[in-house]
């Protein structure tokens, strides 16, 4: 049965969102970096028997100009599917010799079954004029008695060559939703801090130790990197708002203050209203976007921070960890329903992770080993955090129901600053395992089997994973 669902409107709307690229703070549009070369697709799957095995045929391109886009869309789609570990991706090399079919009925099914493919993903790209490309995608069953049956059929009317990766990401998210009932993260982004731009912070005493650090946004797989801030000073710790339409971050004028950006070129605002006698940093927007929790020295003695909450419009700033003059509280994260906060406190002598209600009541210690910092709360019922033991750092996850923590990274390099994907199945973090510089990587949860490098240049820190896109 042929099911053709046209979701071209959704694609066009999403393409517009991407095409209207975030402008830098000073209003100048940010040039797109060239796309990163696609990393070798991993084919390691812990339990391949329970996941549909998919082989990939190259996309048919209606014109030679679309050939490269046809290759890219399959490469990206295969990588997106492999990332979620819901499908087993048959190695591309294994299928290279199989002749491409132009229609589902003419697929050489025996050859596909020989290499273990239960399904074949095939499709075509057609130039429809006006810079638009139509993508037709089919997932075809290879096994009797359903040989030739289409399990997934979609037509994407609003793709573009420049946005072909986004087209592939949309296909991956749709396949995960329809076939595995899963919210994929292929269209999500990471915000982070980098010194890659090479500009210097103004007025530093030593030129060679004066890195400006700017906020960048990139696709979850590292492509499409865009520089967001252009402030030539230290800007760190970005955090997304709901629908990925807002961003908060900390930036140093004299002292650090919280900045709120709406990503549409409108001026930044400073809801924490800092001045040169206080520090406001590590801000996080609540899940409903109405409040910001952050670390502040406001009203306290120097170096003893508290967690504060303020409304997005700057009203009602209040200390949610009062009466803690001799300890430091900070690095807050909201629970997925916005009713609680997790944060770091050294009130017991070393940094540990605590949770509390968002009004500051019901404070509960949650970690008890080593030193714990920078919690991030997942809707799958766990909190990831940085664990320090014997001088080394790893990412640990606390299962909230069981009250148990375990380490999920492998002790290689220094692993810190986790951020969880919105579907809870991945954690991005900072690691120094590749050449000693700080780079962002992702790891799958709960098994922690595959670490993927996402950034490759400069020092990259403070990653934050965007929410799922709206209108998915």
């Amino acid at each position, binding site marked *: 049965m042929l099911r053709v669902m046209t979701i071209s409107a959704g694609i066009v709307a999403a393409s517009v969102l991407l095409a209207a690229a975030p402008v830098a703070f000073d209003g100048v549009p940010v040039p797109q970096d060239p796309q990163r070369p696609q990393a070798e697709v991993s084919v390691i799957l812990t339990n391949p028997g329970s996941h549909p095995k998919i082989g990939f045929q190259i996309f048919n391109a209606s014109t030679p100009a679309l050939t490269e886009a046809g290759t890219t869309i399959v490469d990206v789609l295969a990588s997106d599917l492999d990332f979620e570990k819901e499908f087993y991706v048959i190695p591309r090399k294994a299928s290279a010799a199989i002749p491409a079919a132009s229609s589902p009925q003419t697929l050489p099914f025996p050859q596909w079954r020989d290499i273990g493919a239960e399904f074949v993903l095939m499709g075509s790209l057609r130039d429809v004029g006006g810079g638009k490309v139509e993508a037709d995608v089919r997932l075809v069953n290879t096994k009797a008695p359903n040989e030739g049956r289409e399990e997934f059929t979609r037509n994407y009317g609003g793709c573009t060559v420049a946005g072909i990766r986004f087209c592939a990401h949309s296909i991956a998210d749709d396949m995960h939703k329809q076939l595995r009932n899963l919210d994929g993260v292929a269209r999500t982004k990471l915000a982070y801090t980098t010194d890659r731009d090479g500009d210097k912070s103004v007025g530093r005493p030593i030129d060679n130790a004066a890195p400006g650090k700017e906020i960048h946004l990139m696709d979850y797989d590292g492509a499409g990197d865009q520089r967001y801030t252009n402030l030539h000073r230290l800007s760190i710790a970005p955090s997304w708002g709901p629908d990925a339409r807002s961003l908060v971050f900390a930036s140093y004028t004299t002292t650090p203050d919280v900045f709120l950006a709406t990503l549409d070129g409108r001026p930044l605002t400073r809801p924490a209203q800092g001045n040169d006698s206080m*520090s406001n940093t590590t801000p996080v927007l609540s899940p409903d976007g109405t409040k910001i929790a952050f670390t502040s020295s406001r009203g306290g003695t120097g170096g003893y921070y508290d967690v504060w909450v303020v409304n997005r419009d700057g009203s009602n700033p209040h200390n949610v960890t009062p009466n803690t003059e001799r300890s430091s509280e900070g690095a807050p994260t909201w629970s997925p329903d916005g009713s609680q906060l997790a944060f770091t406190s050294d009130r017991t002598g070393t940094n540990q992770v605590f949770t509390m209600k968002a009004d500051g009541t019901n404070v509960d210690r949650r970690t008890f080993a080593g*030193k714990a910092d920078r919690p991030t709360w997942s809707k799958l019922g766990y909190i990831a955090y940085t664990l320090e033991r014997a001088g080394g750092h790893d990412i640990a996850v606390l299962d909230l129901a069981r009250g148990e923590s375990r380490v999920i990274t492998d002790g290689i390099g220094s692993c810190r600053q986790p951020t969880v994907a919105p579907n809870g199945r991945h954690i991005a973090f900072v690691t120094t395992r590749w050449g000693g510089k700080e780079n962002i990587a992702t790891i799958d949860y709960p098994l922690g089997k595959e670490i993927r490098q996402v950034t490759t240049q400069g020092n990259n820190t403070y990653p934050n994973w965007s929410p799922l896109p709206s209108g998915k």
Partner: protein
Amino acid sequence: MKRLHALTLVLGMAVALTGCVKKTAATTPAPSPGLFPGSATSRTAPATVSSEVPPPPVVVPMDPTVRPVSNDPLVNTSIVDINKDSPLRPVFFAYDSDSLDEPARTTMSANAEVLRKYGTWVVTVEGHCDERGTAEYNLALGDRRAQAVKNYMVSLGIPADRLKTVSYGSEFPFVPGHDEKSWSQNRRAHFMLTAKQ
């Protein structure tokens, strides 16, 4: 009337000017006997001496564009350049500590002298950490280091409103290496001049 006034003024000024310019004592010859009835008996009337007013010193108005020459080069050096090679020296810390040791206190005493000499200077004390420990922890530790230094400087008599503090945690290493030699240089409170008056 006006003309008479003017004439009188001119004559008066002439007399006055004449009086100013003369350097020698003016003597008026004794009146000849017979010129003045009733004075014939006196042949040697006392000479009239007009007192000499020395001219006021010549004053050249001061050229407002000429600055007073100073022996102190810092007076004419920019803040940016002062910070590149500052008379205010940094204070260093042990790992994971905000305690001030003896060398730190010596340095701060010297810095206090500098701040007393330049009584209008305003300084920001920056707290820095080495790269170990989490970034978030280092933001707090850097703040404690800056505050410890500020508190000690205040105890030496420097007014608190001349000392701002900020923490850069481990974001701004002064030395980019990954060994104790570099780390020890990065665990510091750094004095940055932010205003000279």
